[in-house]
């Protein structure tokens, strides 16, 4: 047995799948970095980032079935929605708030992902509300017998909201096919988790609902995949919801409007770099002989091309027409002549 087979076999993944996952982590990172450059260059007013969270998101979402399952994302879910089918162009259309942005047609801030074509429900800004939408999607899946799983994501700060209790309680009572992923990066903007939570682990709360609560190192992409695959299997076979807590690091400020050096020391920020999932996954695959320098070079070129293409494409697209600002308050508020969304 080669080292290659060994790494994939443990989680039932072939080399191609492992490389696809690596590509997704790297692609999400590259788009994210471009968003910051565009922001600092004054091209886009706002960025909210997923840097540091991508490994957990790609690992977990790789266990789902795009096209069947549902996702209710949050503002750091860039890698999650990419893995679920959204394209770099679509991410950039949202970043530039263009008319053809599938998330909102330029109506919402960037990071508020949604897309009917991918079963990604539109997301809002008040944190944690989405868990109840995921529970409702899962309820409908159960009643209609569709075999779908609903997955939703949020931060550990948000996990303190009352909706989380209401949602986990209901999902547990009815054994709903739902997965809640808490991406614990240790901060809610500036407030450290010791002031957010009396216990170190959000996952410990799962016991209060009688459901599994699983902790995974968010820089361990394959570990994240493994726990998600178990959770998906459980959900799909009537075993009910799972709470997955991924311990991740936030490599950027909260958003482009935040100055994190005010509340995080230089030492801490430097140390957190060691928890970056991208180099860790790269090294893991390289050591296993799966990611050769040649493949890595090819991927880097492809990703750079995709990011450039997405940027120039989005930049060239039209803004929404002010005349469209009154459309879709209600179903009957439609453009006077034909026309689709946007």
């Amino acid at each position, binding site marked *: 047995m080669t080292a290659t087979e060994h790494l994939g076999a443990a989680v039932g993944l072939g080399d191609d799948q492992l490389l696809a996952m690596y590509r997704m982590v790297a692609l999400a990172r590259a788009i994210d970095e471009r968003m910051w450059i565009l922001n600092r260059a004054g091209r886009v007013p706002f960025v909210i980032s997923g840097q540091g969270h991508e490994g957990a998101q790609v690992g977990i979402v790789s266990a789902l079935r795009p096209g069947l399952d549902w996702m209710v994302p949050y503002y750091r879910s860039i890698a999650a929605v990419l893995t679920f089918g959204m394209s770099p162009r679509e991410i950039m259309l949202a970043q530039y708030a263009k008319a053809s942005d599938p998330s909102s*047609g330029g109506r919402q801030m960037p990071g508020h992902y949604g897309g009917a074509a991918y079963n990604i429900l539109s997301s*809002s800004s008040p944190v944690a509300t989405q868990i*109840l939408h995921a529970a409702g*999607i899962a309820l409908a899946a159960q009643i*209609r017998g569709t075999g779908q799983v609903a997955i939703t994501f949020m931060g550990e700060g948000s996990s303190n909201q009352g909706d989380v209790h209401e949602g986990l309680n*209901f999902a547990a009572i009815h054994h709903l096919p739902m997965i809640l992923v808490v991406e614990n990066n240790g901060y809610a903007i500036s407030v450290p988790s010791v002031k957010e939570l009396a216990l170190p682990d959000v996952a410990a709360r799962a016991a209060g609902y009688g459901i599994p609560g699983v902790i995974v190192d968010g820089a361990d992409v394959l570990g994240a995949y493994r726990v998600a695959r178990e959770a998906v299997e459980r959900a799909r076979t009537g075993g009910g919801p799972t709470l997955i807590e991924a311990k991740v690091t936030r490599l950027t400020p909260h958003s482009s409007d935040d100055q994190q050096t005010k509340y995080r020391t230089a030492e801490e920020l430097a140390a957190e770099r060691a928890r970056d999932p991208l180099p860790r996954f790269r090294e893991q695959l390289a050591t296993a002989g799966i990611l050769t320098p040649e493949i890595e070079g090819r991927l880097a070129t492809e990703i750079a091309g995709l990011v450039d293409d997405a940027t120039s494409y989005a930049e060239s697209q039209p803004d929404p027409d002010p005349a469209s600002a009154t459309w*879709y308050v209600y179903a009957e508020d439609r453009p006077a002549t034909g026309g689709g969304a946007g």
Partner: protein
Amino acid sequence: MAIRTFLEAIRDTLGEEMRRDPSIIVLGEDVGVKGGVFLVTDGLHAEFGETRVIDTPLTESMIVGTSIGAAANGLRPVAEIQFADFIFPAFNQIVSEAARMRYRSNNAFGCPITIRAPYGGGVHGALYHSQSVEAFFTHVPGLKVIVPSTPYDAKGLLRSAIRDDDPVLFFEHKKMYRSVRGDVPDGEYTVPIGRAAVTRVGTRVTVVAYGLMAHYALEAAERVAEEGISVEVVDLRTLRPLDRETLLGSVRKTGKCLVVYEDNRFGGYGAEIAAIVAEEAFDYLDGPVMRVAGPDVPGVPYNHVLEDWFMVNPEKIAEGIRTLAAY
């Protein structure tokens, strides 16, 4: 044609719609085996089973929030909030989520849910079983708000609400559940959302009301008719979207407008009606737009003397009509 109570009309509609459309579910506290604390959903659990008639935990945000998600995945939920007074834990889900889903997704997602809630005072319900909460929601674009006053309208409008592709709040005055009866036709009919009804034709004063107050307005009109004041009554039926045409048409004819609502006066729904009439019918007015509304205290008190003091009634409305007619 059959005589039905207000409550029976609502219950019949839920059953008929659930028989027609298997995607409709009913969920809320005690709506299942017990049939709801007012028995509005009585019999539904026995007929449709616990999969479609769901006794939820005591968590209002969850009732609305899961309805939103279930609607996104192909169901048409009819949620019951046990009392309108307890809708506030779900306020965020209604206002931030349900109301904004279509707009924020640029029409990619809608939110076809109906939220029913008994509201209103005069039933010894005190501060927390008497509230009129409509103004909190009529303020919000993306929501539709219905307050029917007759069994006929309740049935026709609830059917329209359930079939509507946007979130609808459907407020039922609990004092009317058993005290109000009326003719309800046998077949399937709908009353369109957004249409008011002129329930009494008159010439000198327009009284605008809805819900229980629509009945009290008619009683008041009868009293002052004996004194020679001819009153036209407009029952709004739907508060949002508002039927401006019927409202303004009546006021332009009579030249006087009295707005009646049970909620606290300050910032209540009737304040918006007064503003619209002042802006759009100013040239036709022969007097100020006036209001008869609940006093500005934080709730309806329990003691019957205090409750009577709070509640708008036909005599208070008649007094308002006399004052306005004298201009």
